[in-house]
């Protein structure tokens, strides 16, 4: 099996170690005997969206996000088709905002988003900063990570995670993130896959199934990752382990 990973805007949306997600996927796909290739694209490149199986975008400064959304919008239809066709997306931090209708920055100027999901984004100078503990209901496991954002999504029913600690949506504060087909978008920052081995396992299966539903997957070696995860859970959130 060949898997092509597109790491989008790696030189602009890279504020919180998002490259970790890319490296972790590449590491495990290689170990599983799958030929995984990573391609980096940014504002000066032309991307043939159809060629890739997995898309990863991280978080950026507001200045960089602005630069990115103006470029990304040219791929609007292709990205929409890719999502509808079950291609896998992982969007962390403020990259989730790119997929809504508009982004209004803290000075009031408005940028158009891709309009794939029906929401608007507002930025304010009051940042939301906290450790998060969410539950991923698909596997009944907790997600650990961090939020540090100046934007929030208005009027959208989040559905990816259940909020235990941290900031959810403003329509329903008990939920966070967007899960649609194989699109995963969350304000959780950075290397979410590296820190959450159960989610990583689920995510890898998603990628494989998106290519071949009958593929016989070998076990994924996450022993060390699970020790690290359990250690954090025992120290900080023993009730939720």
């Amino acid at each position, binding site marked *: 099996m060949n898997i092509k990973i597109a790491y989008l805007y790696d030189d602009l949306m890279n504020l919180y170690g998002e490259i970790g997600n890319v490296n972790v996927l590449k*590491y495990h796909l290689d170990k599983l005997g799958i030929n995984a290739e990573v391609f980096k694209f940014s*504002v000066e490149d032309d991307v043939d969206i159809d060629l890739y199986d997995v898309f990863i975008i991280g978080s950026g*400064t507001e200045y960089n996000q602005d*630069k990115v959304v103006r470029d990304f919008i040219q791929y609007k239809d292709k990205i929409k088709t890719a999502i509808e066709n079950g291609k896998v997306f992982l969007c962390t931090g403020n990259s989730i905002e790119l997929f809504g209708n508009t982004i209004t920055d803290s000075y009031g100027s408005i940028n158009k988003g891709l309009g794939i999901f029906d929401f608007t984004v507002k930025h304010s100078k009051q940042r939301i900063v906290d450790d998060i503990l969410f539950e991923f209901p698909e596997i009944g496991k907790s997600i650990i990570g961090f939020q540090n954002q100046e934007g929030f999504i208005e009027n959208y029913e989040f559905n990816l995670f259940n909020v235990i600690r941290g900031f959810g949506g403003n329509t329903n504060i008990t939920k966070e993130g967007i899960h649609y087909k194989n699109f995963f978008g969350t304000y959780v920052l950075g290397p979410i896959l590296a820190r959450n081995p159960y989610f990583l396992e689920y995510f890898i299966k998603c990628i494989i199934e998106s290519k071949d539903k009958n593929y016989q997957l070998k076990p994924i070696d996450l022993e060390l990752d699970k020790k690290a995860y359990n250690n954090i859970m025992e120290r900080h959130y023993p009730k939720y382990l």
Partner: protein
Amino acid sequence: MFFSILIGKFLVFIGKILHKGSSKPGEVVLKMKKDFFKNIKLPKKVIAVTGSSGKGSISTMIAEIYRKSGFTVAHNSKGANLNSGIATLLLENCNLRGKIKKDVLVCEVDERFAKYLFKDIKPNYVVITNICRDQPPRQGNVDIVYEEIEKALDEGMHLILNADDPYLQKFTFADFDVTYYGMDKNKYSYEKNKFDSLNIYYCPKCGRKLKYNFYHFETLGDYTCENCSFKRPKPNYTVTDVDYDNSIITMNGKYKLHVPFAILYATYNTAAAFTMAALDELPLDKVVEAINESKTNTKINNSYMYQERKVNVLSNKNENSTTFNQSILFTKREDKERVILIGWKEISRRYVYYDLSWLYDIAFENLNDQYTQKVYCVGENGYDIAVRMKYAGFDEKKIAYYEKLEDAVSDLKNNTTGDIYAIVNFDYVEPFNNLMMVGDKNEH
């Protein structure tokens, strides 16, 4: 004002008796007298040093240089760099009418507080060291820090900037007098970028991708935009040669300066302090003398021998990938068998967050070569560090996890060979050094 100063001075006096240097007197006086800063009569020379890192070292070196050159100097040498700390510094150095009794005021200023202080303190010279990823829960991100510093700047302030840093050039788009320091290409420079997830890849003027003739580190180097006129400015004061074996750098081809530790940021810090003094036309022989006698930084990083093995202790700041990347570049200098220890007591002493995303901004992959025999991942987050090493490509057999530093050091001493690199947060420097000394006092 008189009354506020009297109270403030009394609190400074009490603090001295109790041996408690703190920013409390300033805090109290600022509450009593909101326009305290406005009413202070400042000396003719006010020098501020701000930016993400290096403020303490550079401002200390500048203060030492001015003293050596015959000036009296007020300096917040203990690093109390917020409003209250600066107010305390002024209280310590003013008379009851609010007049500063020193020739020069040298302030290390927190990058988020410059905007409050500069409007009244009005420094003649502002050294902006760098803006790097640092404490995101507190700082947000680099662009926010840039905006905060920019708000503080005003006409009449003369900026001292690193020419090798493209990000800092954003400050020059407004009409300031700027003096640059920088470093020529040398044997430690390289041509292909070694780090991921950096702060600036595109021209801050026109937005096109920057090209590099060479790099010194991360985004520092000789950059140019092929689309517009933006390029590395020619430094007024240049590090023309580095001799890290003897910890000596040469400025402008003739001034030999001792650097406290043979690492890049010590070079830039020294160059910044030299540039400030040269710009102010201090006698350069005194400047060289002051720098060469400077005590700055010697406690931060150090090298010593442990039973024929060289030990390098590299102090880093958690939540600041740049400091770790710097240590990685240092570690890679020698192609010799080595073991590495990475760890910390706590992620932050300022707040209770457990964010570790910055671990993935650090290019640990560079250390995964034939020379690294083992990586000790130590402390409360030892497992998290170990996972990071796994994804940096280290064979899991080479990764050791220890919760306790003493257990890790004991294993490292007894079961490994080769040079030792401790790439640790600053809170592990002293404990590590102490453990290395146990049972081996003569060797240290």
